[in-house]
């Protein structure tokens, strides 16, 4: 030994003692760190000894409380005592090692969980001379395990409670977890899942898909790109549709597998498809109608023109041979044809205002109203009509449509005038997410029973001699306003004029209200 040579026999003993002391100290430290106490029972002397750390684990004073099995048992939780005693006794009887978990209650009442290990020591003749072992305080470790157990149970409950089918597969493509919904959705017999034979499970999955190869390819791609999240739609042979999501499963930043979740969207998709088809049908039928009205109008006008023209030709050529009565009949027939032409023109005009995706813009309703008055200049002058505009806001609308609505309502007020010169007032009110425009006149007014009928196309309340026109103006107003999500109606009393009202959704309302609270206002 090199130490002996350098220090001599006496120095060597000192060194050995030092070394022993040091190792004893280390042992103590190690026991304290690991919370492991050591114990030993001398059978012959019937004496139990244990380390300081064991005293500490039991909450005892290493100096005052002397080791004794009864002292230990007293500290064991009453519910565990019998089991502990029986475990030790049977192990000693059978001369074999033992191990058990038990709760100990410290004098202060604190409960610790300990793991006790023991060995039965025999002498050369096989006599039981001692029992020895360790007691480890596992409270903290077990608390951690309990927490883990709790979160695992929460996780399991979450996985089972979702409406999605979930499958977790590791990097070797072995199934590591799944929920019942998954096997239900994919109709995989539980025996197949329980067998752990993934190939069989995959076979079940693939056999149901419309394009199994595409799915396989996608899966392989995803396994090669560890970090990719992905989404896909799977179509089944039986018509079902699943959405598939996939995300990598990570542990300490490393991808260890993949989580797949499947959602049955068959009903949702079918509804979407049906809705899209309906929208398409509707659009087509609208386009058809529009074209129908336009074509019909042109084609209807041709023969009408021929009828009127030949009647006039008849009068021109044979006028001398016709009496006054005959000429009158011809004029009436021509006038009838002309009225029908006007009707067709109006029908054409009505069909022209079909809702289309014209761009909505911010429109100054005041300038739209002024433009409407300008367009009606002749009628306004001829009727000595006055049009007064209140404070009119900016709105989001199609300008040409707004002008047309104002124009038709003003024209209406001028046409259905009373004895006084027409006085027309346009004003607007904001509120409730809309702007309500009112076009008031001092005309003849309307009986309440006709309030809704007047907005139908070709509805007339008066003979054409008194008020000419085919009754398309208000119908166009209704079509435009309702096409943009608004309402149009009339409030009136016969002889007292009418208030025509229409609404426009107020997209700028909030903004405008805020502007109004400006202190300078």
């Amino acid at each position, binding site marked *: 030994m090199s130490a002996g040579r350098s220090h001599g026999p006496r120095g060597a003993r000192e060194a050995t003692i030092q070394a022993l002391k040091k190792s004893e100290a280390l042992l103590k430290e190690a026991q304290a760190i690991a919370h492991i106490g050591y114990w030993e029972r001398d059978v012959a002397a019937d004496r139990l000894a244990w380390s300081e750390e064991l005293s500490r684990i039991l909450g005892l004073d290493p100096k005052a409380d002397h080791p004794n099995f009864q002292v230990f048992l007293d500290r064991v939780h009453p519910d565990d005592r019998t089991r502990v005693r029986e475990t030790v006794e049977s192990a000693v009887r059978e001369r074999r090692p033992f191990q058990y978990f038990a709760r100990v209650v410290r004098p202060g009442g604190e409960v610790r969980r300990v793991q006790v290990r023991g060995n039965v020591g025999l002498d050369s003749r096989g006599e039981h001379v001692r029992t020895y072992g360790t007691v480890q305080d596992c409270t903290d470790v077990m608390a951690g395990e309990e927490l883990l157990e709790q979160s695992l149970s929460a996780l399991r409950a979450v996985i089972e409670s979702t409406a999605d089918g979930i499958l977790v597969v590791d990097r070797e493509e072995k199934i590591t977890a799944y929920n019942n919904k998954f096997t239900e959705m994919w109709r995989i017999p539980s025996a197949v899942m329980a067998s752990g034979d993934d190939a069989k499970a995959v076979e079940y999955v693939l056999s149901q898909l419309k394009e199994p190869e595409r799915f396989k390819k996608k899966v392989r791609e995803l396994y090669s790109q560890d970090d990719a999240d992905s989404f896909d739609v799977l179509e089944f042979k039986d018509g079902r549709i699943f959405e598939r999501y996939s995300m990598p499963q990570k542990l300490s930043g490393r991808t260890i597998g993949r989580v797949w979740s499947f959602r049955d969207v068959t009903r949702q998709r079918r509804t979407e498809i049906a809705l899209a088809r309906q929208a398409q049908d509707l659009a087509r039928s609208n386009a058809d109608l529009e074209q129908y009205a336009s074509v019909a109008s*042109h084609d209807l*006008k041709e023969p009408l*023109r021929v009828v*009127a*023209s*030949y009647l*006039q*030709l008849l009068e*021109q050529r044979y006028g001398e041979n016709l009496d006054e009565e005959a000429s009158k009949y011809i004029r009436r027939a021509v006038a009838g044809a002309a009225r029908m032409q006007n009707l067709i023109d109006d029908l054409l005009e009505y069909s022209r205002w079909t809702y289309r995706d014209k761009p909505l813009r911010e429109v100054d309703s005041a300038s739209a109203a002024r433009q409407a008055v300008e367009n009606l200049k002749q009628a306004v002058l001829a009727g000595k009509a006055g049009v007064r505009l209140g404070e009119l806001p900016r709105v989001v609308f199609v300008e040409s449509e707004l002008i047309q609505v104002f124009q038709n309502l003003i024209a209406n007020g001028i046409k259905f005038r009373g004895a006084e010169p027409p006085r027309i007032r346009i004003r607007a009110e904001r509120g409730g997410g809309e702007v309500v425009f009112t076009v008031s006149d001092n005309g003849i007014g309307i009986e309440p029973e006709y309030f809704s009928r007047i907005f139908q196309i070709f509805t007339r309340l008066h003979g054409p001699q008194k008020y000419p026109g085919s009754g398309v103006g208000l119908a166009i107003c209704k079509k435009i306003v309702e096409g943009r999500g608004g309402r149009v109606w009339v409030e009136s009393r016969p002889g007292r004029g009418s208030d025509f009202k229409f609404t426009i959704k107020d997209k700028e309302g909030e903004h405008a209200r805020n502007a109004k609270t400006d202190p300078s206002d």
Partner: protein
Amino acid sequence: MPETRKQTRPIEILMVEDSPDDVELTKESLKGAKMSFKLNVAEDGVEAMDYLKREGRFADAARPDLVLLDLKLPKKDGHEVLREIKQDKDLRRIPVIVLTTSKNEDDVTRAYDEYANCYVVKPMDLIQLIGVAKWLEDWLTVVKLPKE
């Protein structure tokens, strides 16, 4: 040439119109004119192009001084005929008056975009048609047409 007194030959009009009634009424409306007209008729767009290019049975057709073009035509519609005329470097000088029932703004814009010389909506009765014929005559006395 279109100066009433000096007119040596009738004004050659090609009327592209599929309705015999309209052709008849147009003829009737031109009867009162002092100017002499020759109204030639093509019943559809294909025939109109054959006439203008003097193809097939129109090999001996006279080059029209003026085309009256309906838009709604069988086989080839008026817009196509108009485009073909205005893209043909021999024919494009011939004034084309679109004469149609359509008041549609799209048709009007499109026709002028296709270099129509004029767009007239067909009058709704004979009296008004005679007015248009009178206008056409007046117009022809005022304007100077290309020689060829």
